[in-house]
């Protein structure tokens, strides 16, 4: 953790080349307005740091940044009854400028079941379908179970 000297009038402006900070774009847990992007950021970063980072490295026009620190729970206990701490992390909500919007993409889309011919999956699916047909009760009994009967 580098400790920079406190800024006083006349000091050279702090410039960071090749920062060792990395942002993580996450899907918001609660619904956010369309111009808001949610990031998980290292604890040492500030609002100004995020603004400069996004504008200079990724040339993303940033309007406003708000941050908060999420406390990681210390409640769970392991098999030795010791408390296990989940790490704390900082979350940044970035509002984009110039009317831009962003929606988090769907990373795990639902696949339509079209398996290729002669493959294991198709045989397995056919087998599962036959099993389900066999398990279904006789439609001629009109919903009455086998319990009533001979």
């Amino acid at each position, binding site marked *: 953790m580098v400790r920079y000297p406190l800024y006083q009038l006349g000091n050279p402006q702090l410039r960071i080349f090749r920062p060792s900070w990395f942002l993580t774009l996450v899907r918001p847990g609660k619904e956010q*307005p369309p111009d808001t992007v949610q990031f998980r950021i290292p604890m040492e970063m500030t609002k100004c740091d995020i603004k400069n980072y996004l504008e200079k490295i990724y040339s993303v026009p940033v*309007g406003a940044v708000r941050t908060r620190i999420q406390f990681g729970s210390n409640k769970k206990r392991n098999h030795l009854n010791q408390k296990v701490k989940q790490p704390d992390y900082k979350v940044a909500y970035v*509002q984009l400028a110039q009317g831009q919007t962003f929606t988090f993409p769907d990373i795990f889309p639902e696949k339509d079941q079209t398996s290729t011919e002669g493959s294991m999956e198709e045989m397995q699916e056919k087998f599962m379908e036959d099993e389900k047909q066999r398990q279904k009760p006789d439609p001629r009994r009109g919903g009455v179970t086998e319990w009533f009967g001979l």
Partner: protein
Amino acid sequence: MAARTRLPLLFPKKLPPLRNQRFAHAEAALKEPAYPSVVASLTAKSKSARLRQVEEQVKKICDSPVEEKLSLITRIQRKKFVVYPQTFARNADRWYQHFTKTAYIPGLPEKFTPGPERKTEGEESSPPAAAHTTVPGVDRDAFADIRSLVSRVILQEHWHLKKRKAFLYREQEQMVGPFLRCLVTGLSHSLAQYNPLLRLSSLDIAPRVNFYWRRGQRIIPKGHRRGRLEPTRFQIDDQPQCQIRITQQLQQFAPLEASYAEEVPEVTYAPNLMPLFKRQYDNHIFTGAKLPDPACYGHTQFHLVPDRYHRDRMARKQQSDQVEVFLRANALASLFAWTGAQAMYQGFWNHEDLTRPFASQAVITDGEFFSFFCYQLNTVALSVETDGDNPRKNLLWGTESLRLYESVQDGAVVGLNDDVVKLLVQFLLNQP
């Protein structure tokens, strides 16, 4: 059939009295109900009992005088969103339009638009003033007097008075605040001869304006009241630079029905994402003076843009597009609060909607740039119970920022914009 019309064998000599006939000379006897009407209980632990309690409360508020109405509506303190008219939030005007059910119309209403049609109309109908100039009702010499007054005020504050360099973020307060106050007092004094209302008006310096209302609802996510519906409450606490209150109400800018066609932007997200924060304290509804004051209707408000939202600072942060957004949001929130409070003072509230629209005006300035806004309040019924089939919307007209003067050089004002002065005069001369 002939057989059916034969009278019975034993025809009674005395017919029983015909009960359904009403004699013309007798009064209709009031039928007292024999049993009390069947309504839901008042004290049971049921949904219908809660509905009946709400009904009783609404009836109680409707039947009480205005002072009691206000105190009953603002009695209970609960967590509410505090809406600041001058806010740093981005796209605040869209959010505020949704909270207050207001439609924004760029430009000013027909009263103030200086098109060529108005001039021809004025010439045909021979206006009362002798010489028809740019402003109807004010002749050329008077307009020249007003121009010289404005330039005198500008010179006084920016040239003759030697002011120290202001401390951090106090520049607007020190340089432009006194200028605006002098301008308003001077203009209202000189235009009082043309507008008789201004003689009986009340000019407030730095008054407080508060308004409290409910709009929308949400399901409480956690706590002992989890799963229940809760209305979202809002409070505006505003302090304009100065305002003019008059004894009569201003005429409406557009008929009520014209607002049905306008569109209000719908925002489906919770207000706290704006960002907007909740607090709990006394609910206030205040126009700038207490209830018994005769000058209970509003005329014009004047707002100052603070240093934090000055256009130079926004330009340094590359957020010049937010300047207009800020002005619109400021005008919207301030005027909605003022007109809403005026309506509450007349006894209209959520369940008793307005019978006539309330209109007010505002001028927002940062010393050089002036923006003019007109607001018409058509409905105050914004909560969930009353908003379901309410087609009325509130209307806000507004201009872009216009420069008043270019600069002050060598004891003279350079580039004084006549249109802005004309609009100011028109605003102050507005009368019912």
